[in-house]
């Protein structure tokens, strides 16, 4: 079966589960949690930067989704709706923690590659580039990181990001601009400068 067929089948199954859960079927909602929790946790971790906060954000996100499922109109995908709730919960959590925590990612990122076989573009990017991007992301201030994670990894629109983070669309765009510039500096310019310095050291003195 082609990857697109699998995706369509999964999407149909999710749609059925969402409809059943909205009609009050608790087991259908549990099934939705089982299907989406790892993804939700990944987003929560990328936004908050540590396992403890990511767990709390996940818990809160599913509680809000459970309470608000009747209001979910189905005009967006369920996962997108869940990302929005997760982003909103993470924003609240970060606001609560800001005074007490160091701003960079504290916990080590351990990653599971989901479907390497169906992502030729992703596969073609070198592992070292991904590592460099992960590190640069982790070093971003949370406000910049949230916007670039939601836009460039999870493909949410500027309007949705602004709404969930409680900022204006223009502020979201400014943060994204700054975040991408900093990532470009960290990922490419620094490594290129280091590469040049390395070449200079290796070059024999004339």
């Amino acid at each position, binding site marked *: 079966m082609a990857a697109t067929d699998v995706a369509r089948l999964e999407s149909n199954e999710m749609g059925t589960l969402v409809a059943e859960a909205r009609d009050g079927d*608790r087991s259908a*909602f*549990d099934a939705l*949690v*089982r299907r989406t*929790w*790892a*993804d939700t*946790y*990944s987003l929560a*971790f*990328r936004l908050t930067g540590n*396992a403890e906060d*990511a*767990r709390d954000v*996940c*818990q809160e996100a*599913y*509680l809000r989704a*459970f*309470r608000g499922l009747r209001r979910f109109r189905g005009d967006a995908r369920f996962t997108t709706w869940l990302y929005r709730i997760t982003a909103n919960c993470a924003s609240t959590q970060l606001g609560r923690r800001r005074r007490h925590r160091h701003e960079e990612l504290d916990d080590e*990122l*351990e*990653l*599971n*590659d*989901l*479907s*390497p076989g169906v*992502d030729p*573009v*992703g*596969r073609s*990017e070198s592992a070292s*580039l*991904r590592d460099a*991007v*992960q590190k640069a992301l982790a070093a971003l201030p949370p406000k910049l990181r949230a916007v*670039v994670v939601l*836009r*460039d*990894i*999870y*493909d949410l629109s*500027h309007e949705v990001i602004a709404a969930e983070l409680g900022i204006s669309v223009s502020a979201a*765009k400014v943060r*994204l*601009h700054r975040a*991408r*510039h900093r*990532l*470009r500096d960290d*990922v*490419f310019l620094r490594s290129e400068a280091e590469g040049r310095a390395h070449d200079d050291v290796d070059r024999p003195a004339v």
Partner: protein
Amino acid sequence: MTMSTVLPCDRLAELMPDLLDDPSLLTAADSGHIAQCLRCQAEMARFRRLRRTLASLRLQQVAADPGLVDDLLEGLDSAAERRERHRIAGRRAASIVGLAAATAAGVGGVLVLATRRRSA
């Protein structure tokens, strides 16, 4: 007096992050410049690679404690129980208020009747 002019490369470098979302920001003159400028081409390639790499992270899940899903479901159970308790308590309170209102109305009725009889 010296005139400060912003070179196209510097102006375009500042524009590059936004071009990823909105390529229409480029004018025909900008496109013409990029087609001939290796520096701008390299800069654009960096941003595109960055965007592609970020998008590829979507397929990588952060490893989580496998027990988390059970905790999440337990949390939902507790929330559902609390909601049910609230619902029952709300109903109970509503019936008590209803009963009290009915009693008050009954007592009021009896008093009105007694007053009418006495005055008759």
